[in-house]
């Protein structure tokens, strides 16, 4: 048993930490999210220079040969700064789709583009009627000639406005919620027939509604086997959940530490409010929730390569923890900061909003409790 980090991982953590400290305080972030584009290309280039975009990929595809744990370390540190740049979408999700579903050719061409910071991705998976069911798809891809024609609609595609390329889930056969018949495609966002409506989200990101109208793609746009994509999709979103949990850990640590610090210095009734036992207990509960979240994050990241059932259970369990801990820690942080916690000026509110939306992303507590239950033998 070993929960320690390698020297490389520690160096990686330190370099991300330094970047966040220097470049990503709440004011810097505010500037970024209020800018026209809503993300910083300079930061993205800096991520490339720091090697963060190549960290989890094998060396033969231009990566640094890291693994899930490297991804976890990066995401946790990103969580402490509430980084908005689409690392989760591009490196974690799209990168994993290509790595685990792509042909040798696709890996050789596409992964270096991501690792080098040249291409940004978004993943278009959710549909209005589908809620959190990844197989509930009305977007269709029909064979035409060598390739496919895609028609359909995708909701709340995070990072959509920034993307060069989209990973799109679509149905090539079967009924709306069938397990069989799900396929995964890579589509240029600039392709004819792709149209977007872009908007900000409550947690400081940007998203798009995306319509596909007779969008033609070649045979090489297909990732994995036609109609057999659901397994790949589930695996990649479990990897995404593991990364999101790590981001959540970073955010929960900040919320808890900031609250403790605040309660040590804020005085009412002639003493620091941290002296009031009822607040002490609440902060101890925040601490315990944060620790449980960290444990669950390690757990899921260590189980990503196990059997499908074990991996799915681990991901759903960790996601349930994230939803519950996030809610408790976020709400408590606001409460204990009193009026200050309610302001846009203080960082705490921004962390609370992000953590709240983490519950929705990739399926909320209810959804993952059900998924866990269905797998628990």
């Amino acid at each position, binding site marked *: 048993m070993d929960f320690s980090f390698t020297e490389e991982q520690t160096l990686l953590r330190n370099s991300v930490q330094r970047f966040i400290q220097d470049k990503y305080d709440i004011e810097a972030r505010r500037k970024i999210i209020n800018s026209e584009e809503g993300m910083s290309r300079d930061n993205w280039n800096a991520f490339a220079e720091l090697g963060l975009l190549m960290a989890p990929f094998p060396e033969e595809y231009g990566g640094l040969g890291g693994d899930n744990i490297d991804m976890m370390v990066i995401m946790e540190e990103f969580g402490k700064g509430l980084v908005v740049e689409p690392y989760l979408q591009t490196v974690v999700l799209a990168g994993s789709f290509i790595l685990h579903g792509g042909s040798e050719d696709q890996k050789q061409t596409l992964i270096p583009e991501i690792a080098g910071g040249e291409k940004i991705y978004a993943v278009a998976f959710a549909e209005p*009627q589908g809620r959190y069911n990844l197989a509930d798809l009305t977007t269709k891809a029909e064979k035409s000639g060598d390739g496919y024609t895609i028609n359909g609609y995708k*909701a709340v595609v995070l990072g959509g406005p920034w993307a060069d390329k989209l990973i799109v889930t679509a149905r090539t056969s079967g009924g709306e919620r069938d397990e069989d018949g799900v396929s995964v495609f890579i589509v240029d966002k600039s392709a004819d027939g792709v149209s977007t409506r872009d*908007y900000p989200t*409550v947690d400081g990101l940007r998203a798009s509604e995306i319509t596909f109208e007779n969008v033609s793609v070649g045979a090489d746009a297909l990732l994995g086997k036609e109609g057999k994509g659901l397994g790949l999709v589930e695996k990649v979103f479990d990897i995404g959940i593991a990364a999101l949990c790590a981001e959540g850990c970073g955010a929960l640590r900040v919320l808890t530490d900031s609250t403790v610090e605040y309660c040590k210095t804020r005085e*009412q009734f*002639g003493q620091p409010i941290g002296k009031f036992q009822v607040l002490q207990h609440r902060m101890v509960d925040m601490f315990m929730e944060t620790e449980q979240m960290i444990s669950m994050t390690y757990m899921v990241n260590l189980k990503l390569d196990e059997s499908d059932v074990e991996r799915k259970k681990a991901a759903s369990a960790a996601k349930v923890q994230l939803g519950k801990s996030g809610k408790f820690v976020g709400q408590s942080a606001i409460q204990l900061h009193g009026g200050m*916690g309610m302001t846009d*000026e203080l960082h705490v509110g921004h962390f609370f*909003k992000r953590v709240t939306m983490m519950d929705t992303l990739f399926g909320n507590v*209810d959804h993952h409790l059900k998924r866990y239950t269905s797998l628990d033998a």
Partner: protein
Amino acid sequence: MDIDYAPEDEAFRAEVRAFIAENKPKIVADKRARGEELTREDYLAWHKACYKKGWAAPKWPVEHGGTGWTVTQKYIWGEECAKGEVIPPLPFGMSMLAPVIMAYGSDAQKAEVLPKILSGDVWWCQGYSEPGSGSDLASLKTKAVREGDHYIVNGQKTWTTLAQHADWIFCLVRTDPDVKKQMGISFLLIDMKTPGITVNPIITLEGGHEVNEVFLDNVKVPVENRVGNENEGWTYAKFLLSHERSGIAGVASSKRSIEKLKTIARTEFSNGVSLWDDADFRSNISDISIQLTALEYTELRTLASESAGKGPGPEASLLKVRGTEIGQRIDELVVEATGYYSMPFRGGPATDSNVFPVGPEYADGVAGTYFNDRKTSIFGGSNEIQRNIMAKAVLGL
């Protein structure tokens, strides 16, 4: 014991409903449902309509313009207003300051202040909290020094709700720094147009502008604008806070929110099954509905004893704590039910307003409402402070 409505109550309900249907400011309700910022006129539209009808202040005594309704009628009124999604008259004048003026104000103050609160012509805001004095309100530092027939006021108030629209502010100020902190406070009425007052916005986490900082720099206030006696302001302040608390159970508005939640649950599908037909989600709705029923009956018991002549006691804290917790829980469930479409942010940067609404109409602003309503367990005496009050004053601990 009897909880049935008499036929005349049902007739009253019908009259109220008809009045609301006819006079409800529709645009304002739509704006509010989307979480959009309201103008001064938006806030006052319904108040003015009620004033015309003579129904602006059901809780006031008849001599000052109250309606003379029975407890049941007042309850029906509150319920129907919430169902109708109208914005009740702002509480600062109507339910906070007015009772203080009625109990402790001079005749001149009664004649000047009350009619203009009733008509909605003067907008009041509440200047209690300061940066260093929130829960420990009695530690407030804004000071008023007597100079002839004026006070000169210096200091800062904060979290002042809707001060940007206010004509007048009622303030707690320190008039004697040398005695026990509760003993040296006075209660002043200050015209916001007086030179030396500056109002700066505070933006709240969901992006709205409803609170402000109010700076007072050598503000001259006539002595006749003091309510009651000098250095006895704390008594009036506490009297006011108990009124602030009793209105805050929010049963009727929580009922309305549960209806909204049910509508969403019937519309949102997961695996082809509506959330309404999903046993887990449905039991969440049942659970919060049951909690709300308990609160409703607790409130009815309180109302009954109030109409029997007892003022709102420390039990009012129960209504505040449970009322806000329930309201916040419903907000959570609404966000959960809405799913991914709770994410779009209409008030966000670089927004093209043509893009909205994104997703179903009901999704607009649900996350903002959830974030913003976290305030309810903080203001009006935080829920921790309310529990302290009950521990001390009710349980004798």
